[in-house]
């Protein structure tokens, strides 16, 4: 006898758990199936060496939507911040760092003119981020069918644009399609400031500073400020603690979560998605299937192209989803010594990207399937704020490293050791002696991230965040508003509007849409 469920949700990533919680709050019975042994997806903590654990995918919390946090009552379910309002520090080999938090920037090598220019720039772009945040909080409107709610969303967007005032509206329209390099050149002199903001624009994407869409990438990141984050925050216990809190919240609302239950296919019943088959061979029937997996995994992998029409198969196959970020985890037998930073300052977000051309060159490599010779790094030393992540007196360093291709020539195993060495050499430029402190190390390549977190291409956002793949075109034209293009199958992950980044909005919006559609879903 096959089990019959109201809703089966594939993947206990953070968006999946958020979606399940909202659905359960509305009285729906939800079964969440997770292939891994812990909930949270990219919000994960893992022990990578005995006694040393680390946020193994996402490392900073800076975009989680406050409404989601409140509705799931995450604090009650155990979410605690180890630190917040963490500044970003662009490292300098001589110790003349640049520090940025919110509208404020300081450093030995930045002019007062640039400080003032950044203040103004920050204020102006904050307004754009606010407009974007509004758009992110609702389902994307469809353009062709004249639905009243969609018209209202479009009117609100138009009105929001208008409310910016003539100059700001014109400025936003002018910059939103261009690249961050040009925008930096026209606003600032400081190579450090330009590099820091450029790095924020390209993190997690397959883009360099001169790639179109990177201004959008920058504004996307700035949405975190609208949601109440000044700089970034660090979760106590690592990002996995957030996953655990979300899972606890979901269970409290009646959601059933099965771990170690890998879905091997989404099954059609007639012309609808009507269930799933597990790797164990077990079959489950469902009134609705909701997938937190990325669109390519969901549609090309689990459902299969043959269950969709040709035009849709073509669009799915063309989703751009190449990641370029790797993760480096180091177990250290002491606190590293970064030139020009004291022990407490090591708890900040440390960035290696001396100037924009450095980032561009690092990106050039992956365009040709090569590994960056001089990569960009976004470093955290979580044990500064949360000593429990390592044995007493020991430390953990974790870094997002760009750019690393999904599949370098010769395969990753031919490059893994060399690349780790290269990264240690690079770190040693800013933290002399760090090599000698390394007890254990781990490198997660984009291919590893795909394997461990089910993200096609190792892409954080489950699909590039570029203007052809956002809003009503996300994940592809014809599948917006969380419907997948297949009856009975919905998408609730980062591949759906608005995108990834431990925000929780894709999951929330998807649940609200499914609830709104009711029996018609």
């Amino acid at each position, binding site marked *: 006898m096959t089990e019959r469920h109201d809703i089966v949700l594939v993947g206990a990533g953070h968006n999946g758990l958020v979606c399940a919680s909202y659905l359960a709050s509305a009285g729906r019975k939800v079964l969440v199936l997770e292939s891994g042994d812990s909930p949270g997806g990219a919000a994960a903590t893992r022990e990578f060496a005995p006694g040393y654990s680390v946020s193994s995918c996402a490392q900073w919390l800076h975009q989680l939507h406050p409404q989601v946090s409140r509705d799931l009552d995450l604090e009650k379910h155990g979410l605690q911040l180890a630190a917040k309002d963490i500044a970003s520090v662009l490292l300098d080999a001589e110790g003349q760092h640049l520090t940025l938090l919110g509208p404020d920037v300081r450093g030995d090598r930045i002019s007062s003119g640039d400080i003032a220019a950044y203040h103004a720039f920050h204020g102006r772009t904050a307004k754009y981020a606010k407009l974007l945040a509004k758009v992110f909080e609702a389902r994307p409107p469809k353009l062709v069918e004249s639905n009243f709610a969609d018209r209202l969303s479009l009117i609100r967007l138009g009105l929001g644009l208008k409310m910016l005032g003539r100059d700001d509206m014109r400025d936003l329209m002018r910059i939103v399609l261009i690249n961050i390099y040009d925008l930096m050149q026209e606003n600032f002199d400081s190579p450090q400031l330009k590099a820091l903001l450029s790095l924020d624009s390209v993190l997690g994407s397959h883009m360099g500073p001169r790639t179109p869409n990177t201004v959008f990438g920058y504004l996307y990141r700035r949405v975190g400020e609208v949601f109440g984050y000044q700089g970034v925050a660090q979760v106590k216990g690592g990002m996995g603690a957030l996953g655990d809190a979300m899972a606890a919240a979901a269970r409290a609302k009646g959601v059933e979560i099965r771990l170690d239950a890998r879905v091997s296919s989404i099954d*059609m019943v*007639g*012309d609808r998605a009507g269930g799933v088959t597990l790797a164990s061979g077990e079959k489950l029937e469902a009134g609705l299937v909701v997938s937190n997996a990325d669109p390519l995994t969901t549609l*090309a992998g689990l459902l*299969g*192209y*043959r*269950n*969709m*029409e*040709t*035009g*849709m*198969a*073509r669009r799915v*196959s063309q989703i751009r989803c190449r990641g370029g970020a790797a993760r480096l985890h180091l177990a250290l037998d002491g606190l590293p010594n970064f030139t020009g930073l004291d022990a407490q300052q090591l708890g900040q977000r440390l960035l290696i990207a001396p100037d924009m051309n450095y980032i561009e060159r690092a990106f050039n490599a992956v365009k040709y399937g090569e590994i960056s010779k001089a990569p960009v790094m976004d470093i955290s030393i979580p044990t500064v704020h949360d000593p429990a992540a390592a044995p007493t007196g020991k430390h953990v360093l974790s870094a997002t490293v760009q750019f690393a291709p999904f599949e370098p020539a010769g395969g990753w195993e031919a490059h893994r050791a060399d690349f780790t060495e290269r990264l240690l050499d690079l770190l040693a430029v800013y933290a002399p002696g760090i090599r000698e402190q390394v007890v254990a190390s781990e490198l997660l390549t984009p291919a590893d991230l795909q394997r461990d977190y089910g993200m096609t291409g190792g892409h954080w956002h489950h699909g590039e965040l570029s203007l052809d793949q956002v809003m009503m075109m996300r994940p592809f034209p*014809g599948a917006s508003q969380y419907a997948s293009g297949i*009856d009975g199958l919905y998408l609730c992950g980062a591949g759906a509007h608005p995108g990834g980044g431990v925000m929780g909005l894709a999951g929330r919006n998807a649940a609200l849409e499914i609830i709104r559609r009711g029996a018609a879903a």
Partner: protein
Amino acid sequence: MNVKSDQTMMLRTPFHSRVAAACELNDWGSWKGYTTPRAYNDVELEYFAIRNATGVFDLSPMNKYRVTGADAEAYLNRLVTRDVSKIRIGRVGYTVWCNDVGQVMDDGTIFHLGENDYRICAYARAVDWLQWSALGFDVEIVDESDEVAALAVQGPTSCAALLAMGLAGLEQLKPFGLTSFPFEGETLMVSRTGFTGDLGYELWIAPHMAEALWDRLFEAGKPHLIKPFGSDALELARIETGFLQAGVDFVPAESAVRSGRSRSPFELGLAWLVDLEKPVFNGRRALLREQAEGSRYRFAMLDVEGNKPAHNSFILKGGNKVGTVTSAAWCPTAKSNIAFAQIEMPHGAVGEELVAEVYYQRELHWTRVLAPCSVIDTPVFNPPRRRATPPGPF
């Protein structure tokens, strides 16, 4: 000028030497880049060869795509609107295929050549669509358009002519059947198919054997009054028997530029080709919606009063325009004036009386006729000999 008359940018079919020799009018048209005769010597005589003896038409430019592999049937079933599993080995099926929004991209035939082995004959170039459609299927798609030469041999004496050429046992081949014969060391494939609505066959052979086939066929067919025919005669025959022509009676959906100019199978009177019981095929979701919400247009076959073909006519109802004619001809055998029209819903139901606004010219003098016409439900030419197996001994 130093340009030789045989220098042309047009492609030539494998039969070109024979076709050119027979083409007394030197009246050439372009079919997908191939130079093909509109008429050889007299359209009426060519037409009557189809209806009263044997007519031969060079259809080599037809696009032919080979589909092989373990998923060939599943692939075709997702591609086209009808149930391909019902086309057994050795059979041919007529079908249409749609894009995702349920608009007809083309019509054509599927030849089930063998286990996991099919050939699609199509009006439009389709290799990109066929390749995209192959995502997720274990199939190989090969464009065989230039590797297969083909002749249509149509008319009441066609079977007798082919028997005389040595195709023993051909009389047992049923309509839409498929068989093969040895031919001078090669294989000659014969299908009982055609575009004339008469008894007829289509012959498929390797291009280097084309001329030999033509020569043998015309030699054997001489006593059966065999005669080549061009596209103008074919046009008369196909209208008389109710066959749609892609690019004329509908715009292939992927080449339509303007929104709303393409048509669904329902709007072309081809609902009988659509099997909505199949859970997934291209256009199904849109066609289900159309079925629920209603179509925009209806295909109507019109019997028009008088003998002036209603070329390009507006169709009127109570003085208002409700449709346009896509194909029209005075049909000599049926002695009917037939037009195909796209009629705006809800008009165009069988039996409905409409008016065709016909313009014609005699020696620079234009005349407008408001010809009453009625919507008929079956083609005016549909003789029993088309289906008889074995065919009568004409």
